[in-house]
């Protein structure tokens, strides 16, 4: 049981490190500099990658929440939690990278644009979910409660996106469409390739972090169990 998973980790690690260097190379050296925005456009590759992982992580949380409700097991519960934690980190990175980019592209840190607000709300739902997991009590109970919230949260994300889009297009019908075409992600093939490669790398990073996170969490649980067992023995 332990051996193959270790092997898997090794393989992933061996893939991940070169992939990262390659994507850094692709991003900063190989791909051309965008004409309108200049070097600051480089952030685009990180930005889109992390945004994608943020959503991916969220749906992984939702998936494990449904499973947990069906039949709570410790590993499902842990998976959902780790995915949520990684999701928070990537959502934050998306926000921050988007803000930095926004400062150079739009000359403002923040605008109430649909994708931005959606990401912000997504972050809040994640955090709320983590707060529920922090409640004290037996884990089965917490698992059930957090799973219920995770599901409701998942249902909510598309509605949020839709509502915010309507909200803003009423005011600035152009912003969304304009932003989409402007940077011209599809125009230059090098850019597209770079983007796809960095997307793959970041997804791999997510999977790797998931595995490590789950492993660490399980170790922590084992230690905790052993500790309480020892204490109980000593005391009685």
């Amino acid at each position, binding site marked *: 049981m332990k051996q193959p998973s270790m092997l898997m980790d090794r393989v992933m690690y061996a893939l991940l490190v070169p992939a990262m260097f390659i994507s850094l190379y692709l991003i900063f050296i190989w791909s051309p500099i965008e004409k309108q925005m200049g070097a600051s456009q480089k952030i685009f590759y990180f930005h889109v990658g992390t945004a994608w992982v943020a959503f991916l992580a969220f749906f992984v949380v939702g998936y494990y929440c449904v499973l947990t*409700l069906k039949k709570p097991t410790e590993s499902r519960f842990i998976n959902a939690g780790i995915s949520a934690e990684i999701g928070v980190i990537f959502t934050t990175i998306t926000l921050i990278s988007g803000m930095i980019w926004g400062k150079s592209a739009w000359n403002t840190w923040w605008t109430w644009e649909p994708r931005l607000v959606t990401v912000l*709300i997504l972050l*809040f*739902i994640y*955090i*709320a979910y983590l*707060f*529920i997991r922090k*409640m*004290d*009590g*037996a884990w*089965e*109970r917490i698992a*059930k*409660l957090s*799973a*219920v*919230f995770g*599901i*409701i*949260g998942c*249902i*909510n994300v598309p*509605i*949020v996106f*839709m*509502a*915010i889009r*309507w*909200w803003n297009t*009423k005011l600035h019908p152009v912003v969304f469409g304009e932003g989409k075409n402007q940077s011209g992600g599809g125009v230059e093939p090098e850019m597209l390739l770079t983007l796809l490669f960095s997307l793959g790398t970041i997804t791999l990073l997510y999977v790797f972090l998931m595995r490590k996170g789950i492993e660490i969490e399980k170790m922590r649980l084992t230690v905790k169990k052993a500790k309480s067992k020892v204490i109980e023995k000593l005391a009685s």
Partner: protein
Amino acid sequence: MKTLLADALTIAGKDLRNEWKSKQTIGMMIIFSSLVILIFSFAFDPTNNTVKAIIPGLIWVITIFAGLLGLNRSFIAENENDSLTGLKVAPIDPSSIFLGKVLTNLVLVTTVQIISIPMLFLLFDYRFHGQIIWFLLIVLIATIGFIVIGTFLAALAANAKNSEMLLPVLLLPLLSPLMIAAVQATRIVLEQEGIADAISWLQLMVGYDLLFFAACFFLFEFLMEGS
């Protein structure tokens, strides 16, 4: 199904009769909503003309913040003597507890609105232009959505020690689409004659209400189950 409704009415009846005797929760909600208006008038200088543009927003900010107080209460009150456990061991469907509480909260929040919205118009000297029936419809639909999801999350939060802090943290993000729709629809209906422009918002709200009502109704059971 019939007993489910009957049980829900029994529970709502108990809560409402209780509330009628003491009038504590509703009283504090009304006072709180007036105080929020007061705070806003200090913060935003009501003589300023542009402030009238924020009336639709204020209606919902008040509803949500005053509503939060009542929602919090609805399950915390059942912690006294652990009476929620009494309901759990009774031979009733857990969903009837949900229905009963939604009913109670709906009555409470609607009552608060009946008093605080006219007060808001009065204090900010707002002249009503649109059609009152559409306005009422929009307020009602949005309020139902708010109460449904709020009651559900109040039951969830009640498991935590610091539930009064947890509830807004859980509720507000999930409420955001409804909030946006409600504010926009209210603005349209207050400023214009017809309802035409607000139709799509209304549809969004109705969809939200139905979807979350169904989801909460079926998931509520899991909240009531022990581990």
